[in-house]
């Protein structure tokens, strides 16, 4: 009810004032091929994503709405404000209060340092850019060639999942989406972030210290249901991008000192190279990507990207429709599990976008995941 009132209020105020807006309404259709019993072989959903922004002299208010209506999955019918914040700018600093999403990282396929927001598994567990906004207060100070941020995340979000008939629900038992946490869901998580760039060398870098709840959570069975558990860490994170001519070098790394008896300390590393062949065929550009991910811990992890190699290809057509093709093959070097994805997207009649993708998963015996082929079509109107 509160969310509905907020939407009505925002739309009314946007009609009255000079509110900037942008977004899209799209139809998402998915067809699955699998051998799983009691799982749907298709899904259809209507999506709305829109951002409203009101600027004042030295301030702005931003609201970003995401609404999904899935034809079959009742749990996937929701409306959320992942961004709803006030930001005030001073001479050399900003302060942000509210709910917001941020992006941290350098790599293309998966960002191990993108830990500020909880992932939105209800939307799409394989879309790592789909996130839940986090309530926070952030103060950023801008120096000559760098910036320092102090970010206080005020709340840990529950992470809902698609219903049991969805192929994206991969747990063997039922799931209780109420988060269990060591020190309560309102225990703040503090991030100190320093970012800078090179003067003569084309490099951007960030170093982050985190104290509070880890973005990773562990699952425990309680009352015959899986439940997520959040635990406290002291964590160091860093990421950097270096450009040398037509080649981009990327690195992301973390080290977590776990305060939980359930989870050991762990380290993660991701390195990548992207080389672009400009004008390889008329105006078209082709990017070749190689990324490697490593997760080191005394405990066995059942997540992706523990010892994984990703080979990627990106073709930008550089045409009026901004058409592009992105393909990636993820190989787990431990058990040879593979995921292949290819996506084509293009603009149609200026205001519409069409995206078509194919995903193939061929898991091994000890995997949580199942053999699956997915064809997804998205057609959206942008405004």
């Amino acid at each position, binding site marked *: 009810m509160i969310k509905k009132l907020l939407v009505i209020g925002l739309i009314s105020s946007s009609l009255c004032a000079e509110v900037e807006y942008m977004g899209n309404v799209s139809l998402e259709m998915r067809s699955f091929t699998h051998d799983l019993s009691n799982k749907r072989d298709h899904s259809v959903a209507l999506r709305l994503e829109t951002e409203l922004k009101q600027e004042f002299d030295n301030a702005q208010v931003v609201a970003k709405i995401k609404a999904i209506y899935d034809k079959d999955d009742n749990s996937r019918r929701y409306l959320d404000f992942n961004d709803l914040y006030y930001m005030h700018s001073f001479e050399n600093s900003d302060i942000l209060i509210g709910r917001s999403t941020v992006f941290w990282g350098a790599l293309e396929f998966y960002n191990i340092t993108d830990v500020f927001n909880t992932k939105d598994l209800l939307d799409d567990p394989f879309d790592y850019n789909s996130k839940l906004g986090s309530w926070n207060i952030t103060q*950023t100070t801008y120096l000559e060639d760098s910036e320092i941020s102090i970010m206080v995340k005020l709340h840990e979000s529950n992470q809902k999942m698609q219903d049991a008939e969805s192929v994206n629900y991969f747990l063997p038992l039922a799931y209780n989406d109420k988060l269990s946490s060591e020190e309560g869901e309102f225990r703040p998580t503090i991030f100190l972030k320093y970012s800078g760039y090179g003067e003569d060398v084309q490099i951007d870098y960030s170093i982050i210290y985190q104290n509070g709840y880890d973005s990773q959570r562990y699952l425990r069975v309680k009352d015959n249901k899986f439940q997520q558990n959040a635990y406290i860490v002291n964590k160091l994170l860093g990421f950097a991008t270096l*450009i040398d001519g*037509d080649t981009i070098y990327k690195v992301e790394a973390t080290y977590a000192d776990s305060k939980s008896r359930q989870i050991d300390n762990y380290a993660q590393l991701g390195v990548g190279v992207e080389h672009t062949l400009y004008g390889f065929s008329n105006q078209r550009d082709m990017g070749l990507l190689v990324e490697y991910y490593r997760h080191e811990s005394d405990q066995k992890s059942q997540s992706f990207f523990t010892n994984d190699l990703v080979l990627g290809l990106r073709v930008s057509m*550089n045409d009026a429709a*901004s058409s592009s093709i992105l393909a990636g093959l993820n190989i787990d070097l431990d058990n040879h599990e593979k995921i292949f994805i290819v996506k084509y997207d293009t603009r149609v009649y*200026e205001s519409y976008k069409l995206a078509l993708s194919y995903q193939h998963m061929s898991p091994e015996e000890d995997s949580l995941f199942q053999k699956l082929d997915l064809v997804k079509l998205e057609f*959206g109107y942008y405004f």
Partner: protein
Amino acid sequence: MKKMILISMLSVSLMALSSIEIAKKSDKATDGFESSISKTQMTLINARGQKSVRDMIMKTLEGEDGDKTISVFLSPADVKGTKVLGWEHLDRDDDQWLYLPALKRVKRIASRNKSGSFMGSEFSYEDIGNQNYKKYKYDDKIEVVKLDGLECYKGIRVPKDRYSGYTKQITWVDTKDFLVRKIEYYDRKKELLKTAIFSKYKKIDGVWRMGKIEMTNHQSDKSTTLVWIEDKIKTSLTKRDFDKRVLKK
């Protein structure tokens, strides 16, 4: 006879300028704007005559070492809010960042590629960048020719940047105001690739500002028109308005 002498003297006076001097004067005619805020519209026309429109706001800060620019895309709607920040350097690769609003991601991007298409148009990145005279070597041979009734210096310049998409450019510079009126671009195979016609110049606060560029690609039969809808110069923009911080706002 007097008339003949006068014409002959005028030619001598015109010819007395070297190609580098013409290039410097041409630069000077459009320099001195300090900073600018422009609203532009780019119309892409394919070989079948179908049109596609892009709108953007470009902010520029004039600098000794090269200009700083930030371009904000307003349309098509799916790229609305996308920003490109560029810091030009005369002695090394430029710094460039791209902001993707849907992901809230700032990406440093490679800038060495100069020949790539800008937003799918017939303009390349080097066409829309600063045309500082120091970026070219000049052929000594200069002709005075007529172009649509205007008397122009016709000369040849060769980009110094080895990553340029062009082997040479033939330029037509107005003899009166030293404004560039036309450029022919020759590709790496030394074949004529594109022609740009520059028009609708207007003087704002004593500085000549371009109003329209029509770029025709002779090899693909596509063309792109870039029109300045609004143009303000000597604005209050400072170096701070071109910091990375502005990308996320």
